[in-house]
């Protein structure tokens, strides 16, 4: 039972990593295009990243228990 659990958690963490990476990359691009909107873009980026991060931590918790 242990191994599928760990592999599943690993897959979720990889997914979360890709997701946050894409958010960060897109935010960079957006800031480069619209430097005036930096503040707004950063806020939106942090919120989206925080929501995905929650999923990643949930996976870690599932494997930790």
């Amino acid at each position, binding site marked *: 039972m242990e191994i599928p659990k760990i592999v599943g958690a690993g897959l979720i963490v990889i997914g979360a990593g890709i997701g946050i990476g894409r958010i960060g990359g897109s935010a960079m691009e957006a800031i480069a295009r619209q430097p005036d909107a930096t*503040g707004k873009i950063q*806020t939106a980026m*942090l*919120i989206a990243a*925080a*929501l995905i*991060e*929650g999923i990643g*931590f*949930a996976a*870690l*918790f599932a494997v930790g228990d």
Partner: protein
Amino acid sequence: MLSSGIVASESATPHEEGKQDIKTEIKAYIGHHIQDSYDFNLFELDGKHIGFPLPVILWDNGLHVFLSSHFHGGESVAESKGNYYIVSHNKIYKTDAAGSLSFDSNHHALNAKPLDFSITKNVFMILVVSLLMLWMFSGMAKSYKSNNGLPKGIGRFLEPIVLYIKNDIAIPNIGEKHYKKYMSYLLTVFFFVWIVNLFGLTPLGVNVTNNIAVTFTLAILTYLITTFTAKKDYWMHIFWMPGVPAPMKLVLAPIELLGTIIKPFSLMIRLYANITAGHIVMMSIIGLMFIFKNWVGSSLSFFLAFVLSILELLVAALQAYIFTMLSALYFGSASEEHHHEEHH
């Protein structure tokens, strides 16, 4: 290159058993650190715990108040008004004079538990941080009066942060009209989480936001404020989403209702998991020093711990920011008024 060299030199050492011991010891130490405790231990010297005891308050057919030093670091039985208590796995159980405990198959004690209202390490630190904040902010408020509307001392540092929360978190998310009634909660939660996180980075070994009960309470506060200040439009968007076909409304209602609970739940998990993960990684990296026991391992561990400390400094502020930000977002959705229903 460097790490493979270390691994090679380590696998060649003959003291395999000694290494295993130190690993389990570090694991136990980390496990102990991320838990709440009845004493405030600062450090350990020659097997003695240096720190100070905190009051234990129990309700067991009558009030029992005594200092946690009566447990002698959890090793002996404490006697209070004819009742005997013992600490097992960080919980207080009722026992007899000999301190006997019966365990089930999962090694959980089966003895009766008294109601525990003790001032534990976490409670103590929450009180300390509350008093610190009261002192900081009441001093700041007074200095506006005495100094012609300009802050003095620590107020000069705090004023831009307060203004940032007002102008960049509260107003854009909640709106000019309603933001004022939420400001006190947003400011309190931001500074509380931030200061508590910063205390967690000191060598005092404080870990208030590592405790899921603390983050649960903070999240429940956000949930209650959202629910009880919600306007008609908020409930309508949950139970009868405007602008979608009627069968869809029936499907959306339970999902939206579940969403109101998931939102504070994710707030709780995010803060708790971020800070706990940070502490565990930090202590494991410091623990590398005791596993490697050579100059390469020590300097590597020191360097990583230093870099991680700086990252944790960022995370401490970022988690406080995210918590405040998302709370403001939820309050915003609760107090929003739609005058443009036809556009949905």
